[in-house]
């Protein structure tokens, strides 16, 4: 059982990544690549200070954030598509961190005046298993079954504040060649399953009443994605 780095994105973003090598899509998507220029003013400091995090001095803009996963499912609170990345494409440029680094920094009071990061919470990609053992050894014993490992490593909560996971930091871009597998998780899966079941029955009736079917257009995009990614050997579940 191997852990992989997984990033969560929207269907539209996966389509953009999956078609980045096609002139048709790249030509028009490029026109929208404006980047973010934060306005001056104290109110924006909360967004600005994350961008200057002490963990990545002067190279934060090159870092992509993911989560370590055993089943290929990432943090659904941030997007319904989980993209599992190919080890061979990231192992030389990825490292892992005990938990969400912003929460960690706050808890350990790591800040500009106290920039020293405590040792033992960060590892290279090759040593990720050691970091996971150090973090989770108290939660695993002889009664823990293999099926439970994935939820111990990545615990999805109803709210992102309660998610618990090993954070993956990937330096550099992600492209279609970096993807190993895409898994589309229904956005409501974490919510009440009974409501979901009822919604399935009511769905066609809701449409008749003039309420649009939920994420109707995304189904077309997912079909297109399956075909696009099949060319690169990336399955979409």
């Amino acid at each position, binding site marked *: 059982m191997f852990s992989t780095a997984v990033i969560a994105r929207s269907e539209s973003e996966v389509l953009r990544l999956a078609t980045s090598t096609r*002139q048709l899509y790249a030509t028009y998507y490029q026109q929208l690549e404006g980047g973010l220029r934060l306005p001056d003013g104290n109110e924006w400091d909360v967004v600005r200070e994350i961008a200057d995090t002490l963990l990545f001095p002067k190279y934060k803009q090159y870092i992509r954030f993911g989560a370590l996963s055993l089943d290929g499912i990432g943090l659904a609170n941030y997007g319904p598509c989980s993209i599992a990345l190919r080890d061979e494409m990231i192992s030389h440029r990825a490292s892992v961190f005990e938990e969400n680094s*912003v929460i960690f920094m706050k808890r350990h009071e790591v800040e500009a005046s106290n920039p020293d990061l405590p040792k033992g919470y960060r590892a290279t990609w090759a040593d990720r298993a050691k970091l996971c053992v150090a973090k989770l050894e108290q939660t695993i014993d002889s009664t823990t079954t293999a099926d439970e490992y994935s939820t111990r490593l990545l615990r999805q909560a109803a709210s992102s504040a309660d998610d618990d996971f090993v954070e993956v930091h990937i330096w550099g871009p992600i492209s279609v060649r970096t993807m190993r597998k895409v898994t589309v998780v229904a956005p409501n899966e974490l919510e009440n399953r009974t409501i979901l079941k009822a919604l399935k029955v009511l769905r066609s009736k809701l449409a008749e009443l003039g309420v649009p079917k939920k994420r109707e257009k995304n189904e077309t995009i997912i079909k297109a994605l399956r075909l696009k990614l099949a060319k690169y050997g990336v399955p979409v579940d």
Partner: protein
Amino acid sequence: MHAIISGRSRRALIIDGDLLKSLDFDNPSKIVLRQKSDLPYFFGENSDLHILENTTMPLIKSELKSDCNFTSALDLTLISLDSELPDDIREEALEGLRKRLVDPITRQRLAKVLYAEPFPEDADPVGAVRLARREARKFLTELISLQPSISAVKQAWEAIPTKNFGSDENRRVFQQSAVRAGVFRELVWSPEDPELKLAILEYTLPRNMIELFPNSMEIFQVWIENLRSVKKLSADRKERRLAGDRRKGVGRDPRKRLGRDRKEKKLAG
């Protein structure tokens, strides 16, 4: 209250004093309280972000809706133009596009982007029109008919010297602002009169673009001049080609040409 919106992520981040909140397009009635720890994950590498300063919740909702509808419409248009995809998926995308085009704001925003670049070589607009119905068919047919103008406006843009912008980066920023403001679309549509063109552009231009590029109007003047040259060059080429064809006898009745050749041969002999 401020907000950062991404149509591709289908969500908005709201900065309300010290509080961070989010609004999801698929669940607009639910405002979620967010933490700083969410920020590195919130938008991924999406760069279609736009900022609303000193705004209100109804405005955030309306802008998020507009961004999401536009992003969907663009994705569906590109899927419909993709000949690598089977007809049933392209038809489905066109049906989705048809519904989106009913909204005039979505239609306008889509046109601003599609009128800024001629179709790339791997696009299949003819196939898309064959599969399209009603509004989608009309929209694509018009887009196809305007391709010569779209190409001319793009060529004229590329002929503006970089020194007018100061740097390549500024040029890129100017181009993206011009696409969003609909400047490319206005140039494709506007009448031939250069004075009128300039007046239309001045009217189209958003105020922040003039603040960012005080020499915007000079850049437009160069652009319009280039456009005249490109069109003249294209007309000259067409004329030369027609003249060449006339000399070669292309397009004439081959029997008459044969008779004339025989006559010329007889005279020469």
